[in-house]
């Protein structure tokens, strides 16, 4: 592949912590291969050198949480051939979508000395709520192997292998002992999308759903199992409402379990 025809890669940040972008930089063994395969045209986390668009592939990290975000994502979309939203913020609104269940003014008054300087939307929402998204990578943060698979697939013009089934598939394939059944550990694996390699269960921790809802996720069906290992309704709601609480299946199941603070606001 000659340098002249390398596809242009851009990495964009919206409301986020940068952890997903760093996942790319963390792939130290493959980073040179990535740099050979694509022209890193816009990636402020890695380089201040900026190449003008348009871009062949844009990786978009972060959620839409300010009026400025709303405008900027349109520009990114217009400049991008393939737009990939990466991470729980970009695909579901992220942790900051907790505000969607609360009163922004009240929260801001608690957190900031001078909230009047803020210019924020009432909600934190995924990229796909604002512009068409071609592909998404789940996770908080995303998985480095999935990111490389996605870049490789886009370069080869094929569909990336990003299964939407449960984390349980990865646990059973790895030979992990089920932490929910054998240890009584609350685990969202049966309703959460695979891709992390069952990272937490591998270390005897329950899955907390950072990859968001799997295909046909059924958190209501999982609730009796969570209750049987000692998680009351409110705890079930909080577990579902951590990283991907605004994703519809988790939102619905958590909303019936947690009182809405806005209703309590006086």
């Amino acid at each position, binding site marked *: 592949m000659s340098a002249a025809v390398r596809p242009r890669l851009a990495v964009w940040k919206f409301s986020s912590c940068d952890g997903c972008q760093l996942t790319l930089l963390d792939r130290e063994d493959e980073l040179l291969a990535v740099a050979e395969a694509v022209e890193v045209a816009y990636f402020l986390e890695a380089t201040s050198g900026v190449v003008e668009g348009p871009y062949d592939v844009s990786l978009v990290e972060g959620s839409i949480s300010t009026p400025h975000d709303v405008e900027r994502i349109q520009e990114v979309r217009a400049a991008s051939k393939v737009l990939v939203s990466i991470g729980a913020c970009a695909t579901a609104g992220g942790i900051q979508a907790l505000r969607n269940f609360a009163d922004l003014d009240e929260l801001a008054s608690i957190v900031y000395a001078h909230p009047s300087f803020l210019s924020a939307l009432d909600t934190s929402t995924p990229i796909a709520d604002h512009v068409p998204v071609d592909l998404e990578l789940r996770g908080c943060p995303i998985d480095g192997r999935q990111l490389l698979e996605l870049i490789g697939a886009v370069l080869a013009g094929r569909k990336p292998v990003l299964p939407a089934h449960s984390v349980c598939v990865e646990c059973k394939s790895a030979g*992990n*002992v089920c932490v929910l059944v054998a240890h009584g550990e609350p685990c969202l*694996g049966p309703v959460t999308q695979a891709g992390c390699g069952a990272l937490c269960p591998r270390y005897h921790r329950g899955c907390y759903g950072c990859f968001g809802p799997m295909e046909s996720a059924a958190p209501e069906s999982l609730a009796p199992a969570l209750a049987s290992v000692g998680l009351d309704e409110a705890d079930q709601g909080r577990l579902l409402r951590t990283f991907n609480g605004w994703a519809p299946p988790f939102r619905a199941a958590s909303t019936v379990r947690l009182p809405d603070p806005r209703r309590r606001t006086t």
Partner: protein
Amino acid sequence: MTDALVTTAAFDALLGALADDGRRVIGPRVRDGAVVLDDLDGVADLPVGWADEQSPGRYRLRRRDDDAHFGFTTPSTSWKPFLHPAREVVFRARLDGAGFEVTPPDAPEPLAFIGVRACDLAGIAVQDRVLGGGRFVDAGYAARRSDVFVVAADCGESGPTCFCGSMGTGPTATTGFDLAVGERLGDEPRFFVRIGSARGAALLERVEHTPATEADRADARAAAARAVAGQSRSVAAGEVAGLLARNLEHPRWDEVAERCLACTNCTLVCPTCFCTSVEDSVDLAGTEAVRSRRWDSCFTLDFTALGGAPVRGSVRSRYRQWLTHKLSTWQDQFGELGCVGCGRCLTWCPVGIDLTEEVAAIGATDGAENPGGTPS
């Protein structure tokens, strides 16, 4: 000679002899709060003094008040991961000038399975017919399976999720093993060893053993009878295929779909479920490709995705597909049922869906249909 007694030390020597022959010796051992199947260095690695408590959706280990090596029921996994692994390379390919060079997968290592339960022997036999028999033999499976040395372990007790008695697969191994051991506890612990093949007999000759007596055989028969008597669950193996076939619109399918997570655990722990998907990966330079095959499940949407949409979109249709294949259409396809009564799908279902209970519920209202029908 068809049987013999060996001491624990002699049984240990027997495992050593298998390793000396260049085999990877695999058997039950305790890891992460469960009996798993993994490499054994000797009998001390077995779950000595451990028992398991299994019920739908729940598994716990507990200490026994003796030093039984096989005092548990079914290990958390079947032997499937060793014969039909979760992921295997089909081939590797490398760009080589104008063409490409294909490398087949590595040859498998010879295996010895220690402590295979009768239900799991039956499960292996089912996969032998599915993957190793018929017109299309799975080459990888056949290569791994061809030379496995099998030491079965008869069950002296059953767990609450066991129903091998009703499926006719256990608790005593009758075929498909080189040696079968039954454990005799007490002041002079011994393993009662039955010989199932010529190479089993040859291996036994390499370790110290004494002749078994009629009393030892009677003890083994009594243990098997106790194990069967301890089973509270059952499936009417002779009737279930017809029952499910004529109840495809039964309202129970809707009811179980409300509880089912479609998480795939039942299919992945099942010793007979064999479905896979094929994945291709290419390195970033586009010069090295790997085609691999991984476990899939009739519970995933991708599994029936055709033309961009799944054929079985509802959980109802996916659960029904699984149960009717296992207990009904498997018979049409392979001439036997696809269930061996090991009970793992009950234990390892996070919400404890019990196959025997679902079958019983349909049987109790045989012929019932939803008024107006249900979309499949």
